[in-house]
């Protein structure tokens, strides 16, 4: 049964626009929206407002092969007569310059989040293994895996803060590929604040069972201020 209470409709529209309305309920809601102007109006309200949550997205240029694939799927061409192409190019270049700058300024105009500390974990050969970024204000640690050495089966690399005069504090398992981002607890944040170095140990899958390093310490790297 479809609700007719505007409050309930608005709540469903908000959850739909947010993306948390899932599964068959989402499909039913989409059909309802298509046939009910009030539902559509509430969805648009939320879509416009919640869009601001995505302001932090950094634009990513799609690979060059995507656009030709779109043209192929639509059976389109963007070819024009030469003269018209030149005129269009001049016009488009000026418009794009203005709009591109405006769009870039818009997406970049808000204060950027900067790491408060960084560390580069390197192999003896000098090759980078992980890059770490600590975002103190956001209580977050980001680790980017670079070129990892072969890993023993059934093991993980665990990262440790080494606070002066205190036992190591685990900062979690390091990613084997790609990047990971994890929130920092108050204890981890405090340990990092008292550390000038971080270390990496080889631990059983899932991390040290004791809360302290149990395997070989394979890397130690200084924490430094970002350049």
């Amino acid at each position, binding site marked *: 049964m479809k609700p007719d209470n505007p409050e309930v409709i608005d709540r469903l529209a908000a959850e739909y626009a947010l*993306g948390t309305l899932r599964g068959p309920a989402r499909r039913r809601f989409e059909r309802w929206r298509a046939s009910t102007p009030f539902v559509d109006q509430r969805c648009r309200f939320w879509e416009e407002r919640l869009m601001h949550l995505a302001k932090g997205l950094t634009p990513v240029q799609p690979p060059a092969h995507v656009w030709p694939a779109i043209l192929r799927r639509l059976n389109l061409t963007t070819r024009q007569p030469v003269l018209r192409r030149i005129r269009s190019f001049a016009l488009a270049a000026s418009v794009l310059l203005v*709009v591109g700058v405006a769009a870039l300024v818009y997406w970049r105009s808000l204060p950027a*989040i900067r790491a408060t500390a960084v560390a580069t974990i390197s192999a003896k050969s000098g090759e980078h293994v992980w890059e770490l*970024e600590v*975002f103190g204000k956001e209580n977050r640690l*980001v680790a980017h895996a670079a070129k990892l050495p072969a890993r023993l089966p059934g093991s993980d690399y665990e990262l440790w803060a080494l606070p002066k005069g205190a036992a190591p504090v685990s900062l979690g398992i390091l990613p084997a590929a790609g*990047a990971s*981002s994890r929130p920092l607890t108050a204890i981890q944040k405090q340990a990092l604040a008292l550390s000038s170095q971080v270390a990496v140990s080889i631990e059983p899958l899932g991390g040290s069972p004791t809360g302290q390093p149990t395997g070989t310490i394979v890397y130690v790297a200084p924490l430094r201020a970002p350049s």
Partner: protein
Amino acid sequence: MNPLAERPSEFDELLQSLLGRCAAADSIALQRLYELVSPILFACVTRILRRRALAEEALQDVFISIWQQAGQFTAARGRPMAWMMSIARYRAIDLMRRERFAPMLVAQPPEHRASDAEPESEGSSAAWLPSAELMQRCLALLSDQQTHCLELAFVEGQSHENIARLMDSPLGTVKSWIRRGLRSLRQCLES
């Protein structure tokens, strides 16, 4: 309601014009539109899908939908960027369902949190989204947990269950943060 919120910006008008030309089957307009908005839409779907190939498929689908539905878009339907971003996000959510995978339980690196933004002045470079000032003011009223839940859901496409795991909080608590956060936003935006 901020009276400026309903005034279309020059950027809106340009996008509307391009959509109008797309509706008239002008493929050059689609190309211009692609050049203007594909980077932000690609970032949007990549953030949700986390798989490059799938994000590229989603972006293709998005521009095919934009081309096919451009005739249905009118200024009265709202801002063109919100319309296109919704097409992109909903397509990414659909693909997630089709591929039967959930986003990784790893939040993406924080680039910039919407809730951290300074309110924009009317004359600022971001004035092409005039309701931003009001929205930022309203977001600032939410608790950190409420804002974080909304960002994880909207930007990263995380489900209630994943947000609960990521925030190490009970599912019921997360649902309540989201529900109350949305209610507070609505009250603030419509006051």
